[in-house]
C-alpha cells in the first residue's frame, strides 16, 4: 500500500528522479561552506515557520505593537518560545551568513564559473541584514524606535541611493507610525519573498556549478543529507535552549518624548560602523566623516561585487586583503560589545 502510494507520487512529481540525480552528485567530504549553506537554508525555514506563527497575533500599529508582542510572550501557549526562536534565529542567520561569505571569499570561490553564486550570495547578505534590521523595529520598543531613527539616518548618509533608501525605510521624511508599517511590510512580505527567490537561484547555481573539488568526496544523498540533518538537529537544540533560558527582553514601549537623553546602540551587525564613526574626526578629506566612511564602505562593496572580474585567478592578495578587512570588522564589533 505504502509502496503503491510512493510509486504514484514518484510518477507524478518526479521525486524519484530527483533523488536519483542527487545521489549521482558528489559533495566534498570536508567542507565547511556546504554545511553552513545547508544550515542557513534550515535557519531560514525556521524563521519562516516561527514568523508565520508570530504574524497571526502581532499587530503592526504603533499603539498596539508592543502590547501585542507582550501578549504573545506572556499569554499565548509557547508564545515566548516561538518569539525566542524567531529572535535568536535572526541573529544566527546573520552570523552564519557572514561566516559563509567570509570562507567563500578566503577560499576564492567567487572565480569563474561561480560569479552568479557569488552575487546571489552577496544579495542574500544584504537582504538578510535588511530582514534582521526591519525585524528589530517591529517590537516598537524604545530601543527599536531609536535604532530606526539612527540607523536610517546612517543609511541616508550613504552615496547614490542613500537618501532614497532612508525615505523608503522611514516611510517618509521622518520616523513615524509609517516607519512601523514599512518595516512590517518589508519584513513579512517583500524580503522573505526576495530571499526565497534569490535562495532558490543561489542553490540552483550551486547545484549546476559545484566544481569537482580536489580531495575526497561523498554522495550528496543520502550521505551528505544525513550529515546536514544531524547538524540542523543540533542547531535546533541550541536555538530552543537559547530561546528558553536566555529570552531576549521585549523592553519598554517606545515613548516619542525625552529621547535625547538615551543613547541608541545600533544592532550588533552595524556596531563596527558605529565604532568607526565614533572614533572618526568630524571631517575626513573635506567630507563629513559619516558620508566619507559610508562612501568608502560603498567602494569596498563595489570591489567585492566586482571581485570575479578583478581577480580572475583567485590570487593570494585577495585572500590577504579580505582577511585584514574581516579581522578589522570583527575587532571593531568585539570592541563595541566588550
Amino acid at each position: 500500500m505504502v509502496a503503491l502510494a510512493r510509486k504514484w507520487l514518484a510518477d507524478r512529481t518526479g521525486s524519484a528522479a530527483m533523488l536519483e540525480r542527487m545521489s549521482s552528485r558528489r559533495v566534498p567530504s570536508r567542507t565547511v561552506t556546504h554545511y553552513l549553506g545547508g544550515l542557513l537554508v534550515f535557519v531560514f525555514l525556521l524563521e519562516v515557520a516561527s514568523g508565520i506563527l508570530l504574524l497571526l497575533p502581532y499587530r503592526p500599529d504603533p499603539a498596539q505593537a508592543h502590547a501585542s508582542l507582550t501578549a504573545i510572550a506572556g499569554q499565548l501557549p509557547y508564545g515566548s518560545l516561538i518569539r525566542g526562536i524567531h529572535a535568536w534565529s535572526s541573529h544566527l542567520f546573520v552570523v552564519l551568513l557572514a561566516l559563509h561569505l567570509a570562507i567563500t571569499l578566503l577560499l576564492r570561490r567567487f572565480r569563474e564559473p561561480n560569479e552568479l553564486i557569488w552575487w546571489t550570495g552577496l544579495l542574500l547578505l544584504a537582504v538578510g541584514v535588511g530582514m534582521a534590521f526591519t525585524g528589530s523595529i517591529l517590537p516598537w520598543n524604545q530601543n527599536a524606535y531609536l535604532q530606526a531613527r539612527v540607523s536610517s539616518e546612517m543609511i541616508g548618509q550613504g552615496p547614490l541611493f542613500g537618501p532614497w533608501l532612508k525615505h523608503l525605510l522611514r516611510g517618509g521624511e521622518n520616523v513615524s507610525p509609517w516607519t512601523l508599517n514599512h518595516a512590517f511590510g518589508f519584513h513579512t512580505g517583500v524580503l522573505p519573498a526576495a530571499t526565497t527567490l534569490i535562495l532558490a537561484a543561489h542553490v540552483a547555481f550551486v547545484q549546476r556549478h559545484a566544481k569537482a573539488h580536489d580531495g575526497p568526496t561523498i554522495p550528496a544523498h543520502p550521505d551528505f543529507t544525513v550529515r546536514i540533518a544531524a547538524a540542523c538537529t543540533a542547531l535546533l537544540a541550541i536555538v530552543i535552549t537559547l530561546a528558553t533560558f536566555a529570552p531576549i527582553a521585549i523592553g519598554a514601549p517606545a515613548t516619542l518624548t525625552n529621547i535625547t537623553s538615551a543613547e541608541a546602540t545600533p544592532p550588533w551587525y552595524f556596531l563596527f560602523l558605529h565604532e568607526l564613526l565614533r572614533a572618526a574626526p568630524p571631517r575626513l578629506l573635506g567630507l563629513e566623516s559619516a558620508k566619507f566612511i559610508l562612501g568608502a564602505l560603498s567602494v569596498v562593496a563595489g570591489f567585492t561585487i566586482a571581485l570575479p572580474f578583478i581577480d580572475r585567478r583567485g590570487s593570494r592578495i585577495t585572500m590577504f586583503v579580505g582577511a585584514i578587512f574581516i579581522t578589522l570588522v570583527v575587532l571593531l564589533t568585539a570592541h563595541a560589545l566588550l
Partner: protein
Amino acid sequence: MRCSNQTLLAALALIALAGAAGRTAAAPADPPAGAAPKVATEATDGGTDDAAKKKRPVRDSNTCLTCHRTLTDTKLRVVAEEYEHSVHQDERIGCVACHKGNPTDPTVQSHDKTTGFVVRPTHSQIAATCGGCHEDPTFVRRFNARLGIDQRKMYELSRHGKIAGAGDENSPTCTTCHGSHAIMPVDSPNAKVNRRQVRDLCAKCHADKEYMKPYGLPATQPEKWSKSVHGKAFAEGHEKAPTCTGCHSPHAGTLPGTSTVAALCDRCHQDERDLFLKSPHSRAFRKLGLPDCVPCHGDHDVQRTSWLAGMAPDSSCSKCHAKDEKPRKVADEVASILNDVEGEEHGVSVALTEAKSAGLLVPDASYALDRLHTARIRLVATVHTLDVAQLTEDANAAKSLAAEARDIIARARRDRQTERRGYFAAIGVLGLLFVLLVLKSFELARRRRRSAP
C-alpha cells in the same frame, strides 16, 4: 608702524588710568570731613571724567555697604553681607528703607539719630516697618506682582499678633520667622520659612517647654507632627504633604473658612468627611461637643487608621469604648476586615515581585494589584461610616481582585512549567534524532569504504 605702536601705548595708558580712577571712586578711603563724594547712580553720571562713563555697580549709591563690608566688628560686617544675599538686595530698597538716615553720607554723621536714623526698630515697631512697604501695592508690584499685601493685617488677626499687640516682647514678629537681614523668598531653599525648614522654625519656640509655659501650650506639636503620617510623607519626599503652614496659615494661624479642625481636614480629605457625616459618631460627637476628626485621629500626630481601629489598648476605639459591648464588636470587625485586606494586598505584592523576578510576564496581575490597592484605599475611607455590611461587601470585592491576581500568577507559573517540560521533551527527541543520524552517517561511511575499490 611706529605710529600705530604709539597709539597703542597711549590707549593702554588711558585704560590703566581709567582703571585707577574707577578704583579710587569706588572706594573713598579717607574723604575730607563734610564733603560728600560724588556718587554715581543710575540718574546722575560722572560727566566730566571719561573713565567714569563706565557704569559702576549700582550698589555704590548705598554707601552703608561701602563701609560695613570692610568693618572688623563681625556683627556689623555680617549685616551687610546678609543683606547683599537677601531678597531686599536692590538699590530701590536699600538699608534706609528700614534704618532711615542718609545713605549718600559716608561719614559717621549719617548715624546721627536726630536725622531720623534708626539703629534697630523695637519689637513693637517691626510690623509697622515691614508694613511700610509690604502694605503698599504699587511698591510691592514693582518687584513681585504675585506677592500679597495683607501679611501685616493677617498677622494682627493671629494669636501671634494679638499677644504682640498686648505688649508681649516674647511674641513672634515678622523678623522672628523671616530674619532681619538675610530675608529670602519663601521658595528659596535657604529661606527659614521654606517648606523644608518651616517645621524647625516653628519648633524653635513651640518645642520649648519653658517658653510655652506662660501661654499654657504644650511643646509637643513639632515632635508629634514628625511622627505623624503627614510628617513621614513629607520626609519621604512628598512635597504636597502638609507641614505646619499646611494647616496653620503662615500669617493668620487659621486658614480662611476653617473654623473647626474638621473643616481643615476636609480641605484634603473630602471623601472621609462625607462618609463620616453618615456615621453614628457624627451625631454623638456633635452632642458631646467633640471636634469631628480629632478624637480618633489626634491633631498633630495623625496616624494610619489600620493602626487605630480595633480594641488594642492603644487603639482609638478603646479610648472611649473600653467597656461598651456593641461598639467593641464593631471595632473588632472593622479591624479584622482592614487587616485582612491589607494582608491580601501584601501577599499579592510579594507573589507578583517573585513572579516578575522569575521572568514571568504578568501585566494583568500588576493591573489587578493596582485595582486592589485602590479598593483598599476606598475601604479605609469607608471605615468612617462604621457600616460593617458595606465594609464587608467592599472587602469581598477587594479579596476577589486579590484572588484574580493570584490566579493569573499561578496560571503563568503552570504555563512556565508546561513549557519547561515541553522543552526537555523536545531536547530529548532532538538528542535521540541526532544520535540516530550520526550512527546512520557512520554506517554510510562504512558502506562507502566497503564499496570503494
